[in-house]
C-alpha cells in the first residue's frame, strides 16, 4: 500500500513523497531531493510530537510500522522532518515537545500536566539551568506519560526524547553544562515542526470492503468509529485523531486515507 508522507527540513525538495511498501528511509530522503547544501544526514523525526526519532544507523530500514516498531514508530501526522549535521538535536526535540502544548487535547492528567512540565523543564535545559537531577526528572515524567497516557498521542511523547538521548547523549550533557557548540554555530532558521495544512487527510472506511467486524471501533483510541456489527462502520472525522491504529488492524484493507483540499 502506498502511503503519503510530507518530508520537510534539511532536504533539497521538501514536499509530498509517496512511500511504497519496503521503501527505506534513505530512499525517502532521496525522493525528496537528498540532503540540502551537501551536508551530512544526522537524524530524522517521523510523526510529530508523538512520533519517533531515528539516526543514521536506521537509514536503511524500511519505513513501515513492523520494522520500526522497536524504535517506537508511530505514523502520527505523517510528517518526516530531516535534520542535518549542523542541527542541535536538543533544540529539535524541544520544538517537538513544545508542539504538544498546541496539539494535545488535555483530557488526561498524565499527558496534560506531564507535557506541561516537560516543556517547562526543556525551557530550563535550553537556557542551561537544568542539572542532572532535573534531566532525570524530565525523562521520568516522559516515561510516565508514555505508560499512563490515555491515547496514542500521549503514549508517543517519550520516544522522540528517548531515542534522541540514546543516540546523542553528549549534546544533552552539553546543554546541561550550559553551552552547546551546535546551537551557537547554527544561525539558520530552525526546523519548526507542525505547520502542516490542518486536516489535510482523513481516514475513511470503504463501505464496499468493510465487513463490519468492529475491530477498528474497538481499537480506536478516540472512540471515533461507529457502526453496527456486520454492516459497514463509519469514522467520525471530528473525533478522529489520525493515529492510524485502525488502518493497521483492518483485516480487509477497508480503511484508507483520503486527501482533501485545503
Amino acid at each position: 500500500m502506498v502511503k503519503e508522507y510530507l518530508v520537510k527540513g534539511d532536504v533539497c525538495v521538501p514536499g509530498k513523497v509517496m512511500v511504497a511498501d519496503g521503501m527505506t528511509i534513505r530512499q525517502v530522503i532521496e525522493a525528496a531531493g537528498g540532503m540540502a547544501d551537501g551536508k551530512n544526514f544526522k537524524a530524522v523525526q517521523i510523526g510529530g510530537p508523538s512520533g519517533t526519532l531515528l539516526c543514521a544507523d536506521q537509514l536503511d530500514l524500511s519505513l513501515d510500522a513492523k520494522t520500526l516498531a522497536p524504535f517506537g514508530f508511530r505514523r502520527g501526522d505523517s510528517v518526516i522532518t530531516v535534520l542535518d549535521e549542523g542541527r542541535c538535536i536538543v533544540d529539535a526535540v524541544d520544538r517537538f515537545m513544545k508542539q504538544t502544548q498546541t496539539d494535545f487535547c488535555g483530557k488526561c492528567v498524565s499527558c496534560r500536566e506531564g507535557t506541561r512540565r516537560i516543556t517547562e523543564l526543556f525551557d530550563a535545559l535550553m537556557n542551561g539551568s537544568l542539572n542532572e537531577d532535573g534531566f532525570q526528572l524530565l525523562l521520568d515524567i516522559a516515561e510516565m506519560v508514555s505508560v499512563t497516557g490515555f491515547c496514542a498521542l500521549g503514549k508517543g511523547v517519550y520516544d522522540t526524547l528517548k531515542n534522541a538521548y540514546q543516540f546523542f547523549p553528549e549534546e544533552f550533557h552539553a546543554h546541561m553544562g550550559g553551552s552547546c557548540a551546535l546551537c551557537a554555530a547554527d544561525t539558520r532558521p530552525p526546523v519548526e515542526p507542525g505547520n502542516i495544512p490542518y486536516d489535510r487527510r482523513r481516514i475513511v472506511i470503504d463501505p464496499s470492503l468493510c465487513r463490519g467486524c468492529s475491530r477498528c471501533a474497538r481499537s480506536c483510541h478516540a472512540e471515533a468509529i461507529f457502526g453496527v456489527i456486520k454492516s459497514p462502520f463509519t469514522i467520525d472525522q471530528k473525533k478522529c485523531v489520525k493515529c492510524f491504529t485502525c488502518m493497521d488492524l483492518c483485516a480487509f484493507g477497508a480503511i484508507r486515507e483520503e486527501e482533501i483540499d485545503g
Partner: protein
Amino acid sequence: MAKGLMYIDNIRVEFDEEPTVMAVCRKAGVEVPNFCFHSDLSVYGACRMCMVEDENGKIDAACTMVPKDGMHIRTNTAKLLHYRRMILELLLSAHCRDCTLCDKSGNCRLQDMAMRFGIHSMRFQDTRKPIENDESSPAISIDYNKCILCGDCVRVCQEIEGIGNLHFAGHGPDLRIITTGDQPISATRCISCGQCSAVCPTGAIVVKNEIGEAWKAIHDPKKRVVVQIAPAVRVAIGEAYEIPAGENVLDKLVSALKIMGVDEVYDTIFGADLTVREEGAEFMRRLESGENLPLMTSCCPAWVKHVENDRPQFIKNLSSALSPMQMFATVLKDRYREKDAEAGRETYHIAIMPCTAKKMEAARPEFRRFGVPNVDLVLTTQEVIKMIKESGIRFTALEKESPDLPFGMGSGAGEIFGTAGGVAEAVIRHCLPDKSKNGLRMISHSGLRGTEQLRFATIPIGDRQVRVAVVHGLAEADRLLDKIESGEVQLDLVEVMTCRTGCVGGAGQPTALMGSKRKRAEGLYELDRSALFKRAERNPVLNMMYAQDLAERSHELLHHQYKAPENE
C-alpha cells in the same frame, strides 16, 4: 453461573455483569485510587490514577479495562506506585495549595490521596493563570483554580440531571471547565441541585458556606432562632461521626443545636404533613375535574426551577402546595409574628436541609411575607456538621433530646418524604379511603418503593385506578415528560426528585456512595414503621390548627401557583 474468573491482587473473584476491571476490583474489596470513576456516570478515564498491571506486565487504566476470564490483575506494584505518585505530584503542582483555607479540607479526595501516597514535597511551581471564583449562585461556590479537570461535574450535570450546564473548553494546557456561554453560573440554566459539588473530588465546587450567618443569628440576643430539621438529615448526619448510614440521630442533633444556642428546634415532617394534606386535597380535586393531570409534585425546588426554565408547558401540572420547608416556615412565621412584635424580638428561621437547591428556594422572591423571607437561612447537613465540630461538641456522647412541641411531631408519611417515592406514597396514603394496615401494606408493595430510577404503580382509589410514577434524576424525568407529552404514558400523579435516591442523596449531605444512600432511605422507612401515626391527617397538632383557622387561610398561606417567567 459467573461469566468468568479473575484474580485481583491474588484474590479470586468471579465476575458477571461488571463492565470494567474497576468494578471487579471493588467487588474484590480492593479500592483502586481514582478521581473520575463513578458507577452512575459514564467512564471517562482522565485521571490515570487507577492504573493496574495485568499478567503480561501491560499497564492500563482499570476504569476502561474490560474484564476477561483468567486475568491476573495487580493494583499495587512498585511501578504503579511510582506512576501514581508522579501523577499525584503533577496534579497537586497545578493546584492551589492553601488547604487550610479550603472548605473541602478534611473531606477532599485529592488531599486524602496525597496523604495516602505520602506526597510531602513538590518539584514544580503552579504556573497557571488564576481564574476568578464564581460566587453568583445561591447554592454553590465555584473555584476554578482548584479544579483537576476530572470531568465528574460535567458528566453528572449532563447524564444524571440532563441540564448540561458545565462544559470543557479549550485544549491542552488551557483546558478548563466553563458554564454555558462562560457566564456566571446564576445567569445560566443552573437549577442549583448541587450534584456537581457532590461529585467534585476537590474543593473546586462546594456547597455555599453560610455558617457565618447562622452564628451571627444565634449569637444575636434580639433574635429568636428557630430551626427545622428535614427528614433526610437525621439518617445521614451520623456518618460524619462513624455512625452507620440510616441510623436516626435526630435526638442527638436536637441536643447539639440546643447546646449551640438555638432557641427552638422543630421537625420538618410537620411541614411535610401539611404538604400531604394540601397536595392530597388538590390531587383529589384534580382527579375529579380531570384538569391538569398528572399532578406533579413541587417539593423539589431544583425540579421546579427546571420546569420553569425548560419545560414551561408543565408548569400548570405542578402542585400549588408549597414544599414542606416553606409550609413549615410560613405557618411558623405567621404564628410568631404578633408575639414577636409584642416582645420586640425577631424570629430568625433556619432550615437544616440535605439540599443545596433549598438555599435557592429560600431566596425566591415569592416566598417572602411582610418583607421578610419565610426561611431566613438554609444550612445543609455538611454545614451543620462543621458547626457541631466548630463548637467542640462530642456528637456521639450527646444525650438525646426530642424536638420541641408543638411543631416537633409528624407522621410516618412525613418521614419518608426524604426518599424518592416517599412523597407519592404519603399522598396516596392520605387519599386512599382504606385506612387499615392492609391499605398501608398494599401501598408499600405497589411498586412505589424500590431502587429503579423510574417506577410505576397503579393503585385503586375509590372506583378509579390511579396511575403513579416516581422518578429521580432529572435526565430520567425529562424522558418521562417526553413520554407524557407524546401520550405514550398516561399518569395521574408524578413525583420527581432531582437527586438520585431523593433527598437522602441530596448534594448537601455528607458525600456517599450509592450503597449508603440506599441505607439512609431504608432508615427512613424504618422510622415510618416505628412512627406513632402513619398518616398526615392523624397529626393532632395539625388537626387542631385546621380546626382553628388554618382551613380558611390555607390558600393564602400554603399555596403558590408557579408561573412561567415573564421574559420568555
